């Protein structure tokens, strides 16, 4: 399967909830969740319990495979081992979407277990495009690239993030995964301009949207928002989603990675996203009209 249904809603499949998802699969209980997203690297081993569980879950839910380890922006060669394991996983499950980030993670073969920021230069664009091409050719399918959170901006950047992403789409045919929390966090931390971003980003390429929470951290010289994915989606990000979903029907994900709460909290957040989507509003209006 390729692509997800317009205005469909998913949540991240995380280790503490796996048994509950298996139970939901057995009971046929979807709670309005259309699809689940995994971190691909956690499911690489075909002999693992995770892989076996995913076999069962894949029978009931569409899947999105979100990578955090391709290190597409690194000047290091792409890891053949990582790509081979990703290909094995993708070939086996044929998920609706495959994605990774506009970032880099390794130098000289040493990984920093983080999504590190790139300068937005012609050189970086050319390099990143080549790598996306390589991965798409290897996997034999389109991948999505997610806009990252960054806590610093490089003086040598010559183009904006949305220009970088739009040109990446033109050069490689990749899709975009737009994380609205990342856009908001960068707007507060780095002064990223929201209006031109939302006006100029290539919406026809946006296939998935991430909704997540941030936390505030006090530094010696001020405050910074940290993209922790450890709390409910903030009001400003819901406002952004309201604006975006009025014209963009991309599938939306509730993403939660730290201090993972009860599954019900994620389901509540997903219900909140659904309630914002115009399709849902229309359905409610029709229902009200009929009553």
């Amino acid at each position, binding site marked *: 399967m390729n692509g997800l249904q317009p205005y469909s809603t998913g949540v991240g499949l995380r280790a503490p909830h796996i048994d509950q998802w298996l139970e939901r699969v057995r009971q046929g209980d979807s709670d309005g969740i259309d699809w689940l997203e995994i971190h691909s690297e956690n499911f690489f081993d075909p002999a693992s319990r995770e892989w076996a569980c995913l076999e069962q879950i894949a029978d009931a839910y569409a899947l999105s495979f979100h990578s955090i380890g391709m290190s597409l922006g690194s000047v290091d060669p792409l890891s053949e081992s990582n790509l081979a394991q990703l290909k094995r996983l993708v070939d086996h499950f044929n998920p609706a979407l495959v994605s990774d980030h506009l970032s880099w993670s390794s130098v000289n073969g040493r990984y920093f277990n983080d999504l590190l920021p790139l*300068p937005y230069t012609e*050189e970086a664009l050319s390099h990143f495009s080549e790598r996306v091409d390589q991965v798409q050719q290897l996997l034999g399918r389109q991948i999505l690239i997610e806009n990252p959170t960054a806590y610093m901006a*490089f003086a040598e950047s010559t183009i904006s993030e949305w220009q970088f992403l739009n040109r990446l789409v033109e050069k490689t045919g990749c899709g975009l995964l737009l994380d609205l929390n990342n856009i908001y966090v960068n707007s507060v931390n780095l002064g990223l301009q929201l209006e031109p971003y939302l006006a100029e980003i290539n919406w026809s390429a946006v296939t998935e949207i991430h909704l997540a929470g941030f936390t505030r951290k006090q530094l010696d010289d001020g405050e*910074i928002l940290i993209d922790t994915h450890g709390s409910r989606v903030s009001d400003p990000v819901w406002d952004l989603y309201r604006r975006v979903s009025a014209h963009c029907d991309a599938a939306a994900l509730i993403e939660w990675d730290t201090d993972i709460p009860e599954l019900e909290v994620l389901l509540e957040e997903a219900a909140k996203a659904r309630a914002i989507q115009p399709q849902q509003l229309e359905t409610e209006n029709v229902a009200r009209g009929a009553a």
Partner: protein
Amino acid sequence: MLAELQQQFADQLLAAQKPADAAANGGDSSPLAISGPAPAAQLFQLYRNNFYVSLRERLEAVFPVTTALVGEEFFAQISNRYVREFPLTQAPLADYGDQYGGHIAQLIETNEAVASVPYLADVARLEWLLELAEQRPLQPNAFPFERLSALSPEQQAGVRLRLAPGVGLLKTDYAAAVIHQGVTTGELDGLDPNQSEYLLVLPAGTAWPEPLPRPQIQPLDEAAFGLLEAIEAGKELASLPLQDTDWTPALLIQRGLISDFEIGE
């Protein structure tokens, strides 16, 4: 330019510098021209923390008993050094921590505080084997009986059996399993750490005789351990040391501990 920028960024992540030191040095020792919501030194410290904390959390999750034995603060010190000296060489974290026991063994030689807990390295090695067993539950009916029965008796005598991926062996001069159990249950009184052990770590799914629901540590006698050690070392079937133990290759296959074989040269 991009290569240079990434190298300089990595140098910042691996630097021991803290914001206070950076301030004393004029605020920013980075050659990178950056802007952000705080001075460069604080922003790099933020990334540095993410790097160290995320890998320390991985190690704490894999080595909870080791952490309990030395306390969280000291474990963090040992782990910071591990993060510096043992780079993460691939994006998935599944293999990260595989050399932690060796890292502690080296510290026992050189660090007085670690030397006071000489069993710590083997407890960590045991926890790593439990992690591998957790990651790799036994696959039911994995052993290729048909392929084995197609061989001639001479060929069968020369096969090298292979332990299932989640099965682990540890020979220790200390009571690593007893200590592990004691920390887990909170019953450490009267424990003698200086008792050697031969240990087998069983993944979930091992027929013992019912399938184990989770990994388990099984103490062995020397002869049974010797047999498993010989299998792990790749000795041919005909030369396995079977004389002093009731354990046999057939029993190990039946329990799922042997999952495959290779035909000898």
